């Protein structure tokens, strides 16, 4: 508790005790008034003061003022205990609210605890601790194990593993060494690193993310705007209702005291606080919780859209697939082992820098002794011929084999990707297939989307064979291949026309070449954005790491958030509506009304704070 909250607590306790004493003392008549006024003033003086100040400023519909009118009204009617009790309850509620909000604020701050406190910069041969803002581009900083990397840069010395969990939600550490780029906000785990700073603090990843999350509050969701509009009319409407209730029925029925008492109930529940606090808190918590798991949502409106997604359109390369070539299949000919096939291929391609050669060498489990290889000839458009251990090895496409008179056996498999045939001394050894691998979690993500009734579409510039192979593997609803960027926009526009009017089309891309599509879709989602400024700028939702399953996490968070928002709206409006009705009919008293006001606010805040524990 802060000092302010403690003070409020003491005042409540003292006033409560005095109220009890006043109620028990056998004092009769008007003498009771001063007795009750003491706790009333102790617990309510700040409300009275604010009310006086605000009425001087012409703020008629101020909560403090209305609270004062209600309680003073009760005092005038002779309901002393009730007047003090209402003020007391009101303050208890305010205290609870303040504690609950303070706690949420702190846990959100913890979730986003990626701000580096200081940087150790190397100046004149000495390490100086300065604030990250003071470090210039090109300076060298030292990052010790356990410290956060304060600025984006390139490692010039040392190697270590980095914990990127605060940025990506990914717990597997990332290995870095000299020459690797590092991103601010990661935690250095094991070794001392020297880093050359490449961006000033204001432009570094950590500053951008913090800025984005903090500004997310200004992009309001429809539900938030509804609450704002509602709040604008609710208080005046309830106050006018109270005035009418106090005057009109007694003109016909008499009994002024009773009707004024009922009108006071209206005043007590005239603050829309429960809604005004809990709805933005839910969105804020949702955005904070998402960012802790490496999902940046740029505003409450986007969180709302995410929950309504009905069509998910994916780019292929880099989004559903790794975007990196790797060996996907080995088919040795009869009498040849996989190891023999791979060794021959790796030796033949030993000197090449071609991506396909690199992926073959990577797949070969062992060191390639290049001294075994001689007479390497690259045959453009066909492949490579080389002598290894005295044997002539050919590795390349069908044309290369046909040119050397080597017959290819019929293969039933039609692999998507590049096929490398390998032969030695005129004998066919088999084939290796190199392709862009589908991401491990892509199939799971697609099937989870389809289970949720979301139409899944893939748009790719790649060939039909490759595109369809990936689509079959993932079980997508729809695939379009051989598309130019302009065709992608056209397809998205067609899908936008076809989707349900209430639905949302989300486009998921890697943010590199798809800025026009990202902005055309209802919701643009960029993936693998660690350190990519372009993607962070272009998209509405940014998945920091490469994992397509994060899309499901993001949707779950958004759905939970929207559910809490709806619960709070229905609950708060329902309870207030009920008490307005009960109050008008004379079935509720001020005690109950004050619960309807602050009690509902506290419950709604507690409900909203569930958003912070999204796991």
């Amino acid at each position, binding site marked *: 508790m802060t000092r302010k909250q403690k003070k409020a607590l003491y005042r409540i306790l003292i006033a409560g005790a005095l109220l009890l004493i006043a109620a028990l003392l056998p004092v009769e008549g008007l003498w009771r008034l001063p007795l009750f006024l003491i706790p009333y003033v102790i617990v309510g003086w700040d409300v009275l003061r604010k009310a006086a100040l*605000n009425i001087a400023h012409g703020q008629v519909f101020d909560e403090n003022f209305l609270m004062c009118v209600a309680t003073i009204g009760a005092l005038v009617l002779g309901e002393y205990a009730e007047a003090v009790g209402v003020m007391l309850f009101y303050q208890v509620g305010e205290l609870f609210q303040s504690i609950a909000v303070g706690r*949420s604020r702190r846990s959100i701050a913890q979730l986003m605890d990626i701000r580096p406190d200081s940087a150790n910069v190397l100046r004149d041969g000495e390490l100086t601790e300065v604030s990250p803002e003071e470090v210039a581009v090109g300076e060298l900083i030292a990052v010790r194990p356990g410290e956060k990397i304060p600025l984006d840069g390139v490692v010039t010395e040392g190697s270590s593993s980095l914990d990127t969990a605060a940025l990506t939600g990914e717990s597997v550490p990332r290995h870095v060494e000299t020459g690797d780029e590092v991103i601010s906000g990661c935690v250095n785990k094991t070794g001392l690193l020297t880093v050359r700073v490449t961006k000033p603090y204001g432009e570094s990843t950590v500053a951008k993310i913090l800025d984005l999350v903090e500004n997310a509050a200004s992009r309001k969701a429809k539900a938030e705007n509804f609450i*704002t509009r509602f709040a604008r009319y609710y208080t005046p409407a309830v106050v006018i209702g109270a005035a009418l209730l106090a005057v009109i029925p007694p003109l016909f029925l008499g009994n002024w005291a009773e009707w004024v008492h009922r009108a006071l109930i209206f005043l007590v529940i005239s603050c*829309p606080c429960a809604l*005004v606090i809990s709805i*933005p*808190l839910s969105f*804020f918590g949702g955005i904070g919780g998402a960012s802790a798991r490496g999902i940046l949502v740029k505003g409450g409106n986007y969180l709302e859209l995410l929950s309504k997604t009905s069509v998910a359109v994916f780019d292929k390369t880099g989004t559903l697939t790794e975007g990196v070539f790797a060996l996907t299949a080995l088919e040795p000919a009869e009498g040849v082992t996989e190891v023999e096939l791979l060794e021959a291929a790796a030796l033949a391609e030993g000197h090449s820098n071609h991506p396909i050669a690199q992926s073959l060498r990577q797949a070969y489990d062992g060191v390639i002794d290049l001294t075994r290889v001689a007479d390497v000839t690259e045959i453009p458009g066909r492949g490579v011929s080389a002598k290894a251990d005295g044997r002539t090895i050919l590795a390349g496409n069908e044309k290369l084999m046909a040119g050397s008179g080597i017959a290819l056996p019929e293969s039933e498999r039609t692999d998507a990707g590049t096929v490398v045939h390998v032969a030695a001394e005129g004998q066919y050894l088999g084939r290796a297939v190199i392709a862009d691998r589908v991401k491990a979690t892509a199939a799971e993500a697609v099937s989870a989307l389809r289970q949720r009734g979301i139409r899944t579409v893939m748009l790719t510039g790649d060939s039909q064979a490759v595109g369809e192979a990936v689509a079959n593997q993932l079980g997508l609803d729809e695939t379009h291949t051989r598309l130019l960027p302009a065709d992608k926009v056209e397809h998205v526009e067609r899908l936008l026309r076809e989707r349900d009017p209430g639905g949302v089309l989300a486009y998921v891309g890697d943010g590199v070449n798809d800025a026009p599509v990202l902005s055309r879709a209802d919701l643009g989602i960029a993936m693998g954005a660690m350190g990519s400024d372009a993607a962070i700028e272009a998209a509405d939702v940014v998945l920091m790491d490469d994992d397509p399953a994060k899309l499901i996490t993001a949707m779950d968070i958004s759905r939970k958030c929207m559910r809490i928002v709806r619960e709070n709206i229905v609950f708060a409006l329902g309870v207030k509506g009920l008490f307005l009705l009960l109050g008008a009919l004379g079935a509720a008293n001020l005690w109950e009304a004050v619960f309807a006001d602050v009690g509902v606010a506290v419950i709604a805040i507690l409900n909203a704070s569930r958003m912070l524990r999204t796991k």
Partner: protein
Amino acid sequence: MKKTFDLIDLDCANCARKMEDAIKKLDGVSDANVSFMTQKMTVEADDSRFDAIMKEVVKCVRRVEPDCEIVLK
């Protein structure tokens, strides 16, 4: 120009909303946002008259919540 300010002792969410409404209506202010959760205020207004507009903004804040203070950087 868009500037962000910290707010101290912004105690009530409805007040934040009222401030935002009032600041948005000020002449020369193109957009404003008062966040109860982050205790921050963002004001977007004419460059040339920014300081004069900020004086009006301070008045708006005082009127809605007398105890609330803006940290003018």
